[in-house]
């Protein structure tokens, strides 16, 4: 556990209407950390991300980010504080050009460094530079994922949440995507990687939490988790 965590979630409850989805989540991400939240479809991973970014209200518990309580903040304030969430399904702006999409990534934060950050994103994803003037809706699935991450990077995140970045990508592209995420982390970016892809995620993270029915049922280093018999049975199919 990091001594002075960047993100600290304690006893978080959240849900939709009458239904409670998250039932007391405790989780930490340290400076420069790369941490995974793993679990199958429908266990509440995306709900957790939406609660962290203020879209879904926290009903109970606290979220501290970079030394401040953010669980009552509205989404724009959370983005301004440097917690950037790249959502499941990309959610890019299909009617706008690739470079307009990137520009809007710096709508709330780091607008002053826009030109230089755009260059940096283009250096990471050269494909986006080739497509800069193209409408984002015409990009391939992999390119849209790159754009979604690129848009997130435009805000100079302190922590980036990636919700299923490998979803819908070919095995080769998944490999490339995970390599790129690892490189971003090696450059100092803290990453919360939310995935169903347990095997490949465990290869790149420092620690992981296993989410089931809205609760964390296990956590530890990849080695600890890989040697856990329950996890092997449930997720690794061994």
């Amino acid at each position, binding site marked *: 556990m990091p001594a002075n965590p960047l993100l600290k979630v304690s006893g978080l409850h959240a849900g939709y209407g009458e239904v409670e989805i998250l039932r007391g989540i405790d989780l930490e991400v340290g400076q420069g950390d790369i941490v995974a939240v793993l679990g199958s479809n429908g266990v509440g991973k995306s709900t957790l991300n939406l609660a962290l*970014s203020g879209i879904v209200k926290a009903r109970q518990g606290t979220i501290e980010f970079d030394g401040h309580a953010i669980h009552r903040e509205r*989404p724009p304030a959370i983005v301004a504080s440097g917690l950037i969430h790249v959502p499941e399904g990309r959610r*890019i*702006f299909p*009617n706008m050009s690739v470079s307009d999409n990137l520009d809007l*990534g710096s*709508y*709330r934060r780091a607008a002053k460094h826009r030109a230089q950050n755009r260059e940096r994103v283009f250096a990471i994803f050269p494909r986006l530079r080739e497509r800069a003037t193209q409408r984002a809706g015409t990009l391939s699935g992999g390119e849209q994922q790159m754009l979604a991450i690129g*848009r997130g990077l435009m805000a100079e995140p302190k922590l980036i949440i990636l919700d299923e970045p490998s979803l819908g990508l070919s095995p080769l592209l998944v490999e490339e995507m995970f390599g790129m995420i690892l490189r971003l982390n090696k450059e100092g970016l803290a990453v919360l990687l939310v995935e169903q892809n347990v095997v490949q995620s465990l290869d790149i993270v420092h620690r992981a939490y296993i989410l089931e029915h809205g609760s964390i049922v296990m956590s530890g280093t990849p080695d600890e988790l890989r040697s856990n018999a329950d996890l092997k049975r449930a997720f690794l199919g061994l």
Partner: protein
Amino acid sequence: MHLTILIPAILNGLLTGAVYALIALGLTLVYGVLHIINFAHGAMLTAALFAAFFMHKLLGLDPYIAVFILSPAFFALGYALQRFVIGPAAHGSDSNILLVTLGLSVVIENAMLHFFRADTRTIDVPYGFSVVPVAGAYLSVPRLVGFGVAVLVAVLLWALLTRSDTGKAIRAVAKEKLGAELSGIDVSHIYAVTFGLGAACVAIAACLLIPTYYVNPHVGTGFVLVAFTIVVLGGMGSIPGALIGGLFVGVVESLCGLYLGESLGQIGIFLMFILVLLFRPSGLMGERA
């Protein structure tokens, strides 16, 4: 029909159509972003016409000066209405927004009926009847000004939407609300800005109309019916569609008036509306921008 009658009719139709387009612009913008028809649009136009009327009557302000006060004032009014009345009252449901704007229009129109009676009023400006010859036709100067300003506003609005951060945020919210929120865009602020822009369009239209038109508590309704036709014709939410659709409708109205008689001019518009709904429900411009 003789060209010397046809050309002036077409030119006059374009002049009327540009102001129609300006009113439709506000309606289509709000539709494109909030995905609702603003039923208070007509009442806001009426209120703006009264405001322009009284600024002239009481303060002696020319409408072309008053526009610089009324357009920011209506922007602020529209912003506040959406942010503090419509938004909170709607609780995030689109059908509620619709009902709230409908209720607002009833309240505004009845308030005006109460204070100003059903009388029809006009203002006198020195240039009210000035004309200039254009291509063999004599065109009204205030209506020419109306045309120029309406087209200019459409171009400025387009530039705002495509070049500025706020404009890009408006387009982002229109298509991908969650993606916009996660980029730090304050959606309720953008909704309010959009509503404010719609109200500002109406205020500008009112200042362009009042030198040659009249105002009574119901005058906005007729305009908004035409504007709604234009919005459907140009494609719901499309800015270029509203401009081209507006000009087109102006010409159709003018030509129908020429062939069928002045009082039947608007029949052509609604006939066209029904034909478009039957054969091109997505509008003449096709795309749902």
